[in-house]
């Protein structure tokens, strides 16, 4: 068969039933094979959307997201999406067309060195030189993308290779000598961790995105309940533990909650699980803090251990497996005093009445109205943090966002991908007027595929997050006014979508009810005061 047909066969072997893509001259051979297959191809409206959609799809389905584009501009348009997935450890397999292999390097029409361009934010990449190697490469790519610390893998396939004939044999397994991720934690280290936990007085769990990536939520819950240790989370760790749990502390970091950050500074033992302890997480915590705090760091990527923060007890491996082992070695602790101390740092916010919609209240209200299985996809900016801070976590809920790269324009396409992965679940995209316009091309994809998602658009006429930063630092703003915003409701209507504009809190409930009952996509545009604060 043709190698392009083999690519599709490999996808079927990997149980891929949905791909996101955009065709072009250098990938038509694959598209022809795709046409003849049962795989659902979702035509995005911009390639960046393909990568974000595949990311949303992966986060919700637990499978590897797949996108396919042509060479040159098709491939380079993917870059931001690939980098976003890389920073958040999302498994993707990205297939790009390339110019004929004998022409590579001559600056052909639509030639771009995409393996080179994405080198620093792909987990691995291949430029296929032998058609016969394709099945092995595909098998390896799916294996590498999904195992260990997940991430995007790119396969660049020259057009003549796509047309070459090969004997198709899909390898049964992979053997990559340079890639053997450690999954099971070292038992000696786990014992040390258990001992440190037993000795500690003010232990604090900090759950990161790795907990949800390894589906370790149930094991984390057992760990928390068995030991009684309070648990905070990072932005990416949102959803690791239900907010209703008595041990739940909330989000730490620069935009976290005061009680969570206070717990971080006062703890004598920090247990990081599946977190890379990034600058935004560590945020304000001082170096001095480290002198009095011991750190247990559980992560599947050994390079994360000790990278940002020194660690006394590293445990390398998969969060789920390590927690299973650790749960057998830990005992119940008396943490009641410590937990009430943490709770005492809570600052009770009073709800401000504004002329416009209070976005924090809007998210709280929506959160209450959504089912336990709802998925919320937040864009970047103030809207992201309003969402992160006010969307209640329940077991089974999901919160998706571009945490590492902080990519505006993520929410619309990622929500589309999420909806395709779980059509029966409620999916809400929370987005600002800036981020909306970065990806509004995907309204086409959402509408054409009749995706019943709710778009909650916070219109503050500003790049609000930057406005706030400038106001704080320079007492003046520059380049943040979104003058002449379009009529977003009309715009959505032009795409055949329904929508409602809301200017007062009192109108929110009715609007959300309408949105949630709507079969197709529905936009709720909330008019927000330009000076609304993030926290």
């Amino acid at each position: 068969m043709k190698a392009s047909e083999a690519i599709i066969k490999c996808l079927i072997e990997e149980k891929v039933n949905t791909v996101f893509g955009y065709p072009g001259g250098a990938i038509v051979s694959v598209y022809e094979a795709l046409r003849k297959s049962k795989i659902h191809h979702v035509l995005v409206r911009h390639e960046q959307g393909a990568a974000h959609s595949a990311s949303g799809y992966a986060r919700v389905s637990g499978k590897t997201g797949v996108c396919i584009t042509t060479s040159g501009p098709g491939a380079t348009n993917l870059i931001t999406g690939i980098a976003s997935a890389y920073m958040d450890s999302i498994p993707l397999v990205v297939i790009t067309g390339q110019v004929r292999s004998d022409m590579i390097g001559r600056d052909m029409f639509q030639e771009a060195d995409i393996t080179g361009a994405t080198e620093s934010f792909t987990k691995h990449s291949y430029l296929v030189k032998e058609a016969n190697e394709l099945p092995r490469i595909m098998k390896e790519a799916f294996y590498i993308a999904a195992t260990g610390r997940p991430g995007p893998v790119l396969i660049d396939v020259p057009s003549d290779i796509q047309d070459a004939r090969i004997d198709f044999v899909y390898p049964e397994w992979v053997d990559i000598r340079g890639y053997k991720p450690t999954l099971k934690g070292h038992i000696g280290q786990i014992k040390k961790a258990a001992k440190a936990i037993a000795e500690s007085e003010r232990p604090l769990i900090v759950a990161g995105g790795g907990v949800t990536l390894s589906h370790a939520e149930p094991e984390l819950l057992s760990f928390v309940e068995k030991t009684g240790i309070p648990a905070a989370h990072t932005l990416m760790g949102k959803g690791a533990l239900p907010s209703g749990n008595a041990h739940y502390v909330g989000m730490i970091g620069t935009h976290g909650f005061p009680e969570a950050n206070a717990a971080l500074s006062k703890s004598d033992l920090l247990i990081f699980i599946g977190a890379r302890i990034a600058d935004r997480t560590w945020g304000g915590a001082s170096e001095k803090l480290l002198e009095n705090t011991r750190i247990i760091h559980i992560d599947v990527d050994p390079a994360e251990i000790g990278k940002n923060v020194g660690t006394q007890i590293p445990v390398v491996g998969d969060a789920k497996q390590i927690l299973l082992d650790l749960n057998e070695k830990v005992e119940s602790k008396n943490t009641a005093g410590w937990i009430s101390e943490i709770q005492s740092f809570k600052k009770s916010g009073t709800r401000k009445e504004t002329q416009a919609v209070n976005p924090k209240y809007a998210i709280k209200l929506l959160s209450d109205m959504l089912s336990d299985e709802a998925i919320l996809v937040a864009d970047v900016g103030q809207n992201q943090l309003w969402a992160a801070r006010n969307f209640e976590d329940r077991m089974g809920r999901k919160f998706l966002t571009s945490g590492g790269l902080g990519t505006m324009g993520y929410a619309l396409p990622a929500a589309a991908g999420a909806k395709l992965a779980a059509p029966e679940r409620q999916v809400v995209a929370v987005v600002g007027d800036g981020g909306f316009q970065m990806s509004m091309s995907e309204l086409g994809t959402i509408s054409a595929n009749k995706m019943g998602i709710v778009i909650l658009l916070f219109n503050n006429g500003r790049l609000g997050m930057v406005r706030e930063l400038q106001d704080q630092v320079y007492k003046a703003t520059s380049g943040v006014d979104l003058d002449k915003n379009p009529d977003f409701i009309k715009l959505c209507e032009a795409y055949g979508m329904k929508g409602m504009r809301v200017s007062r809190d009192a109108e929110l409930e009715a609007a959300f009810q309408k949105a949630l009952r709507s079969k197709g996509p529905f936009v709720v545009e909330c008019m927000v005061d330009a000076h609304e604060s993030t926290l």
Partner: protein
Amino acid sequence: MNRHILSVLVENQSGVLSRVSGLFSRRGYNIDSLSVGETENPKISRMTIVVQGDDHILEQIKKQLNKLIDVIKVAELDVHQSVFRELALIKVKTTMAARASIIEIVDIFRAKIVDVANDTLTVEMTGDEEKIEAFINIMAPYGIVEIVRTGLSAIERGNKEIKKYEED
């Protein structure tokens, strides 16, 4: 800052060198030299990388290298248990009068003259870095036209093999 010598086994494939060197520049690691060539197994290449950095940086370098799929093994060589060699080709200006004294120095250093022209001599020398530096310093007054160096290659003494290193 300490110098460290890393020996790295990698898949002998295109793109590997770019991945390794890209890693160093992008993460801001200082690299003194990098040399690479095929090993006893033609599918595997071995790199010798001389890096500078404190323990924390060195540990990160090792871990980040190990993260690359094409990297099979990373070992830091013990300076006292290893042999280091570098090859340098040095083109020196000469005159009739100076030629004899240059040849004398070349002999003392156990280097080799590989090309003679009317007004230049090209010397090939192998040795550890200090030896090469010393030779270059002595040649400087004669006038150095060009130098090309391979960067350090290193291997451990005795029956040790880096393939058999335990991952740390």
